[in-house]
């Protein structure tokens, strides 16, 4: 599918790279996101307000009082030609997750039964998955993590839960997510992390993950979970603590 520029009124337009969830499509989204950020840092692309990556498209916001769509689109098209060469910012993080408590792993038995593999193997496969943040959205700080091991691919729960606890680690379709807040949700809950995806005590750095990040999970005991949770209650975690490598 070729790249399309889609109209989103007079303050935004969407650069759509495909209609499906796929690594090459998301990589192109992130490459353009990074290329536009670099241009703006260099003082070019005046009038671009912000860019918002999603799984398969980049939404470009602009100020119609300082530029026009007709002026911006050719400048963005020029970036697409060389855009593939630009590697988007990508940190590697490892997040602790407790799978070993029935209170957290509410759907572990169900997932094991539906996939026909043991509970222990479900956990191993989740731990073996290298995830990439395709998008942060739906709620502030909620990461959509692509790269879930194939045997764990399942549709969402037939009836969503009214209340999914904050920091629940869950899977559905080909993805994993971490809930930033207590909210309704239809994903299968495998465990819980003591690391909040959104901590307002960190101010502008409230979110833990950003689009493009690579994420793995590390298995922790309930005791370690409790110790880390107590620590997080006293003061917010410095995200750097979970970063293995920065660009």
């Amino acid at each position, binding site marked *: 599918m070729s790249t399309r520029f*889609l*109209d*989103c*009124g*007079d*303050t*935004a*337009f*969407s650069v*759509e790279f495909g*209609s*499906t*969830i796929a690594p090459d499509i998301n990589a192109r989204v992130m490459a353009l*996101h990074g290329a536009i950020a670099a241009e703006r840092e260099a003082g070019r692309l005046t009038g671009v*307000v*912000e*860019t*918002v*990556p*999603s*799984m*398969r*498209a*980049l*939404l470009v*916001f602009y100020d*119609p*009082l300082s530029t*026009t*769509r*007709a002026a911006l689109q050719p400048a963005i098209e020029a970036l697409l030609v060389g855009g593939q060469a630009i590697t988007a910012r990508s940190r590697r993080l490892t997040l602790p997750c407790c799978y070993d408590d029935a209170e957290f792993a509410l759907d572990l038995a169900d997932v094991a039964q539906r996939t026909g593999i043991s509970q222990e193997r479900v956990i191993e496969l989740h731990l073996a998955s290298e995830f990439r943040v395709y*998008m*942060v*959205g*739906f*709620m*502030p*700080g*909620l990461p959509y993590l692509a790269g879930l091991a194939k045997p764990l691919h399942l549709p969402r729960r037939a009836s969503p839960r009214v209340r999914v606890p904050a920091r629940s680690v869950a899977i559905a379709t080909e993805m994993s997510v971490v809930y*930033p*807040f207590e909210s309704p949700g239809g994903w299968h809950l495998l465990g819980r992390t003591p690391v909040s995806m*959104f901590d*307002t005590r960190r*101010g*502008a750095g*409230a*979110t833990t993950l*950003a*689009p493009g990040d690579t994420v793995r999970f590390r298995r922790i005991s309930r005791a370690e979970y409790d110790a880390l949770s107590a620590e997080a209650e006293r003061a917010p975690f410095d995200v750097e603590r979970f970063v293995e490598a920065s660009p």
Partner: protein
Amino acid sequence: MSARLVVERPGLFDTVQDRGRVGFQELGMPTAGAMDRIALALANAVAGNTPDANAAALEMSVLGPTLLVEADSVRVGLVGPIEASLIASEGAAPKPLPSDRSHTLTRGQRLKLGGIGGVSTAYLAVEGGIDVPVFMGSRSTYTRAALGGLEGRKLKEGDALPLPRETASARAELALAAPFDYGSGPIRVVPGPQADHFTEAGHATFTGSEYVVSKEADRMGIRFEGPKIEHSALGPDIVSDGIAPGAIQVPAAGLPIALLADRQTAGGYSKIATIASADLPRTCRLLPGMRVRFTAITVAEAESLRREQERRLAAAIAGLKPARPEGGIDMKALYEENLIDGVVLCVHVRYHAN
């Protein structure tokens, strides 16, 4: 003691808002911000705040609060068709205050804000801006994540809005020369981004029918009732993508939902069109039961409408006129002003009833 306005009685949904939280949507953070950026700009202008200050004001919906002044003096800018009165001291008879101008209030006085006529919101700015903490570059309240504004929520009894100054600056009060013309007629929209998810008949239904604002209308969006819009073979669902302000999504049920200030950053329903930014403030002012039509325009037309509207807004701010100070009320002038206010209210009602 620090200067503040104390909430003696909250309104229906009062929140602190500025122009919104820009630059954090990639992290899933909705922009929030004033539903009606024009009224916010005018309220700040009459209160003496320059546009680059991005001062935070109080957005009021349907019914405003009663506020007690705990400062030597404070200048407020009130904009929108809202009933207001001043209670000079405990037990004193309320004295009507006209809207669309500034007023200076002194310690112990109460500003009693009442019903808003014909539109959903009105704004109360204060000189220097409401001094709540900045979060992610903005003071705007986003209630769904309980952040920004005053503890991330609507005002309640006993709250105190922090003021940045202990006294109002010495200058004449300012008033709008005329209520701002928000425009009338069909709401102009740009088709897309998922125009191809709808049949030709679906597009014709959308732009050829009358839609009614349902009771489900808030800062996040407005659900409309009316004829169902037909999807094409591509269907109603998409892999989630970003959402621009004023995007009109159409889920499988076929009814349009306009996404406004508190909209989520991304969503998985096809979007038939996006409201032109010049027509977004008047859309945000709609009340349940009001009838609207939509008409399609191009991106370039929407851009030029916005630039023309911004020129008129700048002219309205440049054309603010001195208003009579609070002290010497002359009954004849008050009577005339009330008559004028009455007319203003009718005009607002007519615009928004279409």
